[in-house]
């Protein structure tokens, strides 16, 4: 009796095993994003933007069902590398999508790429991986970081501003930012200010700006720094007196807190929620319905990353043939929310960049809107250092 039972159980399990093997193997995708700490607002957009594209495709990408694992990098490189390594070593992973921040990308790139998985960054675009450290399995659906700061420098130069006051946090990305601005701005820099990443009160800096009377201010103050600065800027009566150009300081992740104080301020980006094409209209409507907030570039780039995977898996007929898959990804044969989008030899995009301006919508919500095109088909200069063809 016992033997018989065991046998039949074994047979049953065997049959079950065969049945799963016959069903289509799902695409295994890891989404690495920051979901704890103050930066979680950005990470959630990446997660949700990606998920939205998958949901709209009925849980499939390229006709194959997907199995998504969400990995919270906690914005700590050591944590990220531990979690990601155990994930990619845990079995055949097809794609890793993430992260938001460049320092995390630096930590996870090696374990992911060593495992043979394809790494798609929906936001971080460091200069190193665009140049010498480029990799055939690494793609970026955002931009090369410097380009966003260059947009504002170019615009300030085009406007013929003579005197600029520029401000950024005192860390590597802050220094890169101001260097990017100055690459195109040829006027006089009255003062170049580096503030601690933990700054709360900017009244000292604002008083200096008011007394220096610059033609233009450029700021790179991401997250809470930007919220504090922008609110205090308007309270100090500077709104409308000095043009305010910025990078990652006024966007959909900070606007719910900045609100009216940010209206009329400028940023640089490759896309805005009011971009005039049908796919963007559909995306923004669906995203707002699902997540109750206005999507920013983070969500948009993650959505495009999912569309990219969808198009490539479809064209290559699965992920079995890596060379075929890579060739299909390079074609970027999908309808980007940005419209114009193609890959350079280094896996970074060649695309248009815009000056965007903060506006209040009729429904009372805030968003960035396209003001004018600053660069067309702009490729980053690091591609020449990349050995890939």
């Amino acid at each position: 009796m016992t033997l018989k039972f065991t046998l039949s159980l074994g047979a049953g399990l065997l049959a079950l095993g065969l049945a799963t093997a016959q069903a289509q193997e799902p695409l295994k995708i890891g989404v690495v994003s920051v979901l704890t700490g103050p930066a979680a607002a950005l990470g959630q957009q990446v997660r949700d933007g990606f998920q939205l594209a998958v949901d709209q495709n009925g849980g499939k990408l390229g006709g194959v069902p997907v199995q998504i694992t969400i990995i919270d990098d906690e914005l700590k490189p050591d944590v990220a590398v531990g979690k990601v390594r155990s994930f990619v070593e845990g079995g055949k992973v097809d794609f890793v999508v993430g992260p938001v921040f460049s320092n995390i990308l630096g930590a996870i790139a090696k374990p992911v790429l060593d495992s043979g998985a394809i790494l798609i960054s929906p936001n971080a675009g460091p200069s190193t991986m665009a140049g010498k450290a480029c990799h055939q399995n690494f793609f970026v659906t955002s931009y090369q970081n410097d380009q966003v700061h260059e947009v504002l420098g170019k615009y300030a130069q085009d406007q013929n501003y003579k005197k600029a006051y520029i401000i950024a946090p005192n860390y590597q990305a802050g220094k890169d930012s101001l260097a990017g601005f100055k690459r195109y701005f040829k006027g006089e820099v009255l003062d170049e200010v580096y503030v601690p990443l933990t700054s709360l009160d900017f009244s000292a800096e604002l008083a200096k700006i008011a007394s220096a009377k610059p033609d233009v201010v450029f700021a790179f103050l991401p997250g809470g720094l930007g919220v504090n600065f922008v609110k205090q800027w308007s309270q100090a009566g500077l709104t409308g007196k000095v043009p305010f150009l910025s990078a990652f300081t006024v966007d959909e992740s900070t606007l719910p807190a900045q609100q009216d104080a940010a209206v009329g301020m400028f940023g640089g980006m490759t896309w805005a929620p009011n971009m005039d094409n049908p796919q963007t209209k559909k995306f923004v409507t669906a995203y707002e319905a699902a997540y109750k907030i206005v999507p920013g570039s983070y969500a948009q780039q993650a959505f495009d990353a999912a569309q990219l995977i969808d198009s490539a898996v479809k064209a290559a007929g699965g992920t079995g043939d890596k060379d075929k898959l890579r060739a299909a990804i390079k074609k970027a044969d999908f309808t980007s929310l940005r419209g114009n989008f193609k890959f350079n030899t280094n896996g970074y995009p060649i695309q248009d960049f815009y000056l965007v301006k903060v506006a209040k919508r009729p429904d009372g919500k805030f968003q960035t809107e396209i003001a004018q095109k600053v660069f067309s088909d702009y490729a980053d200069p690091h591609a020449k250092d990349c050995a890939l063809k």
Partner: protein
Amino acid sequence: MTTGLLLVQILNGLQFGILLFLVAAGLTLVFGVMDFINLAHGVQYMLGAYLAVTFVALTGSFVLGLILALAAALAFGLALEFLVFRHLYERDHLDQVLATFGLILLLNQGVKIIWGAAPLSVPVPEFLSGNVALIDGILYPTYRFALIGAGLAVGLLLWFVVDRTRTGMLLRAGASNAPMVSALGVDIRKLFMIVFAFGTMLAGFAGAMAAPILSVEPGMGDTVLILAFVVIVIGGIGSIRGAFVAALIVGLVDTLGRSFMNDLLRLFMSAPSARATGAALSSMLIYLLMAVVLFLRPEGLLPSRGRT
């Protein structure tokens, strides 16, 4: 650098100092009277800001929202005292640090679940939203003056309660010898509960008052907590007067350092290296100040009486 700008920056420094005092007052009260290290003071400050966001939006009035937020912060303080803190009074400092650090993690995650991770804000109340023109055409926000007023009022109130009332007398007595006060028939537990809840409310008040000028986000209390500790260490632990003086000094040193360090260094350095050194040095200034004070007067500038 003009005299006008210098005056404005001194005002900015005093104003930042007052903001720090608002946060540090509750911390030094609890630390001084109860000998309790409350790392959760920062998250209580954060919670005050979040409560202000909710209640101001709900009532549409800043004053009404502020009052409701204070009441809620007080209730929350009482609940925390009942659930957590009362079990820690007898324990040593390490246990208190561990438990209150746990509260930081819990509450930071908690506000994220309830209010979301994105930064929020409270609009500046209409009647305080204007500017006052100072020298050189520099405008100064009216709300900042209100903040200075609120800080001074809190300072006065605390001084009055601690130095001039019967409760204050018991507090001071309890701080120097709790068992003796208890033996005299005073319910020391109840006294501690009141002090603690009041401290929480002060933290909440600071958070609510800071909400219109600062970003309301998870973790906003952590930076402030460090600054508040610097203030009470410089001022002398448990001393309200010390906290007040130290907060003003820290505010002034930090603001003036950020404003003029570059110009000062540029007198004998090239511009780029002055910039790099200035940025590094000005963000270190208050910690250097703390080190110097600890070296010269380990008990702080104005240590509270009755403590050794």
